[in-house]
């Protein structure tokens, strides 16, 4: 087991380095001179040169990348911003704040969006999927299937504003979606995030209902389920003790990917509800061509995806003994 983890973590690190390298060089494909932002309205060429030197932009590309990478472990001192302690992803060109602090500061928003949505997705999605499989062909199954097809076809940027318009503006049932520190006031935190959770879960849950249903039905057609029936196991225990385990594997895989995308900052959701999560940070980084922030957000997003892939593989071994972590 540990050898598996070590190998996978090393592989993950290689991928993260690869991604940061690609993002770094991609960024330089843009004809944008970030130094410009550090020079006043009237910017004599001499000052522009000085700023480029301060930002280390006068060094060759790979050296700049190496400085960025080593800064994560040993920290770095910028003439333009001052010292940057160990987990240093540099300073944002747009807001002059340390990138790492910005991400850590924005992470709770994305985290609460993700947790809320995943709880609803998993519980509601899988539950309806199971019920639809249990009552296959009956009215409940038909309703679940048709609503899940409709749900899966909705787009966040359509449903979001619509829900806000009706629920908040017209009916005033719920406050406008925003983020309130969970630690300060859990109730308002919950109420203010209800709409984003609701919208996000409508779309994601639909997929999980459809997937759970088809997986459960596929498992129920397996030979070993027939054997269980032949052993006198009741229909209910066959359904809940035998069939669901097989069905969980593909669902975990997909959930790993979805969770990672949410953790990486659901850009469209945060844009629709103007939530200041990592997604918005990423969009601003692109609009301001803010390399350090962009690199930081990409690496954090990729790390979430890669880390969750490892977790999913480990989970496989728990559920399916045939999977050996060699």
């Amino acid at each position, binding site marked *: 087991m540990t050898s598996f983890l070590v190998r996978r973590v090393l592989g993950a690190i290689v991928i993260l380095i690869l991604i940061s390298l690609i993002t770094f060089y991609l960024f330089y494909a*843009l*004809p*944008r*001179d970030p130094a*410009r932002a*550090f*020079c*006043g*309205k*009237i*910017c*004599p*060429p*001499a*000052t*522009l040169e*000085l*700023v480029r030197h*301060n930002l280390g932009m006068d060094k060759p590309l790979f050296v700049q990348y190496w400085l960025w990478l080593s800064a994560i472990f040993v920290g770095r001192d*910028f*003439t*333009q*911003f*001052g010292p940057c302690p160990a987990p240093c992803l540099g300073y944002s060109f*747009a*807001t*002059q*704040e*340390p990138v790492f*602090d*910005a991400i850590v*500061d924005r992470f709770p928003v994305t985290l609460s969006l993700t947790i809320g949505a995943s709880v609803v997705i998993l519980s509601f999605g899988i539950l309806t999927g199971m019920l639809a499989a249990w009552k*296959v*062909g009956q009215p409940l*199954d*038909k309703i679940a*299937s*048709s*609503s899940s*097809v*409709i749900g899966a076809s909705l787009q966040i940027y359509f449903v979001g504003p619509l829900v806000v*318009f009706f629920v908040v503006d*017209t009916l005033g049932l719920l406050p*406008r979606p*925003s983020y309130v520190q969970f630690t300060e006031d859990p109730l308002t935190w919950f109420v203010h995030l209800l709409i984003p959770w609701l919208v996000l879960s409508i779309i994601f849950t639909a997929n999980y209902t459809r997937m759970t249903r088809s997986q459960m039905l596929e498992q129920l057609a397996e030979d070993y389920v027939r054997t269980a029936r032949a052993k006198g196991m009741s229909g209910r225990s066959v359904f809940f003790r035998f069939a669901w385990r097989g069905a969980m594997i593909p669902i975990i895989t997909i959930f790993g990917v979805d969770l990672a995308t949410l953790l990486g900052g659901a850009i469209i959701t945060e844009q629709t509800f*103007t939530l*200041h999560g990592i997604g918005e940070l990423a969009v601003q980084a*692109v*609009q*301001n*061509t803010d390399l350090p922030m962009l690199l930081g957000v990409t690496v954090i997003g990729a790390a979430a995806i890669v880390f969750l892939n490892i977790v999913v593989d480990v989970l496989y071994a728990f559920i399916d003994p045939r999977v050996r972590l060699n």
Partner: protein
Amino acid sequence: MRSHRRRIATATAVLAVGALALAGCAKGGGGGAPSGAASKPPLENKAVSAITVGTAADSTGPAPEVAGAKPGGTANMIDRDDFSHLDPGRVYLNYNAMVSALFTRQLTNYKEDASGSIKLVGDLATDTGTTTDGGKTWKFTLKDGVKWQDGSAITSGDIKYSFERLFADFITEGPIYAQSWLVPDASKPYRDQYKGPYDGKELDTIETPDDKTVVFHLNAPHPDFNFTVAMTGYGAVPKAKDTKQKYDKQPFSSGPYQIVSHVTGKSLDLERNPNWDKTTDPIRHAYPDKFHMEFGLQSQQSTERFLADTGSDKQAFTFHNPVAPERVQEVLNNPEAMKRSLQGLTPFTTFYNINTKRVTDVNVRKAIITAWPSKQLQQLQGGETAIGKIATTVMSPTVLGYEASDLYGKLAKPDGDPEAAKKLLAQSSTPNPTIVYAYNQTPVQEKVTIAIKDALSKAGINVVAKPLNSATFYDAIGPVDNEYDVYWGGWAADWPTGSTAIQPLFDGRLIGDNQSNYSHLNVPEINTAIDQANTITDPTEAGKAWAAIDRKIMEQAAIVPEFYQTYFGLYGSGLGGVRFDPIQGEQSALDIWVK
């Protein structure tokens, strides 16, 4: 078995029809009949009536009391971004300058009286400074009793140090006027001649005969140097408390408030500075006990919260956030909100540079101005209240000496006059020219481009629109030999006199890559007029000279003026004394009190 999906198709149809019906009964998605805006009183974006230089008497504190104001309470500020810089030497943005006014004081500053006229008065200095040789040497004497937040006195040494540190290598974002004037050789870059105080060297062009007096020896006469030192960029920094780069996040206060906490990107909290002496300050009040500032709210959000006016938003104001353009109509129809609204003309003017090196024929340039669809552009960006009045000159009305003039009859025909433009083109070398119009690819600018293409093509001018990535816009138009003919520009004078409104943009000798003279205008007659205007000591005379230069530039048709930008903002019902600062064009915090 698969019949269960038979009903899906019918379910979808029902849902679709339902949604459309729902929309029908919604409270009318349309804008409704024209809101009778015409019947509304015309917006009083009046220009600043007069800018004068105050006397020593005007410079003495305390500032006149605001009617009905009472101390106490906490004033909240909600806005879009955190302040990128608070170290005076790195402040150039008006947004940063507005908050710095609460804790950074300069030698001189502006005082607005009830009638709306502006006076330059001494802030830390007893008066607006004295010069005997036409502006080459300037003497300022500090007031008694001006102290830092720890109670230590502000000395002439601190003022000298504040100017010296502007030469350090980490101070690059602020203004560069004083630095380029305080070095012996004006032609060479100032950073090569002095590297800052951190290696023990001093700048000998600044003398401090005693603790109270500071004498500046400039390398050329600058009669409006007393306006220059009013910039936040030249605010005082204590020699003992200079934390270099970290000073940018938590500066040491010489004003009525001191910074208690600053969580970057999130919030800034200020409390009273016990050592600030009201009698030494003719400009600032300090009614609220605390200021709490919160960031991360786009203008749509702050507009919604001001309209809702609930809870702590009652005591909230905003420096920068205007009313969101798409909500302007809603606010204008809301009399209660209008009671807590602010309107005013900002020093910002926007215009379209015409690259005189590529569009060489003046008649073509004149035709472009004549055919320009100013009215449509104004309507596209939210009308006069949200974006600005249609401009016809280079200088903004907020600048001393502004004279209204409309050489191309834009106010008469704001929709553009294709016929007159065609006539001008007939007299030009190219009857139907092709111009390359570069624009910043934002949603608004894309709509503007469509309107411009329509209007100019009606006048026979063929427009090639070149979208530029919004991040690389300035990099693309920066080089002198860029391949674009017309591109958008915006400018604000650093102080309300003609020199910073015109010289950096139209002085032929300042043309260079990434320099501000984007229209590359190089007319000897204008260059000499600029030098001549720079030597006039009397402000009103200087104003007339700059107005004449303004007309000459418009005759050259170097730019298509767009707007004198206006500000339209809201604040909470629980605050009094929220006023519009015409110098910076944002809401001022200096007279605020909590009801």
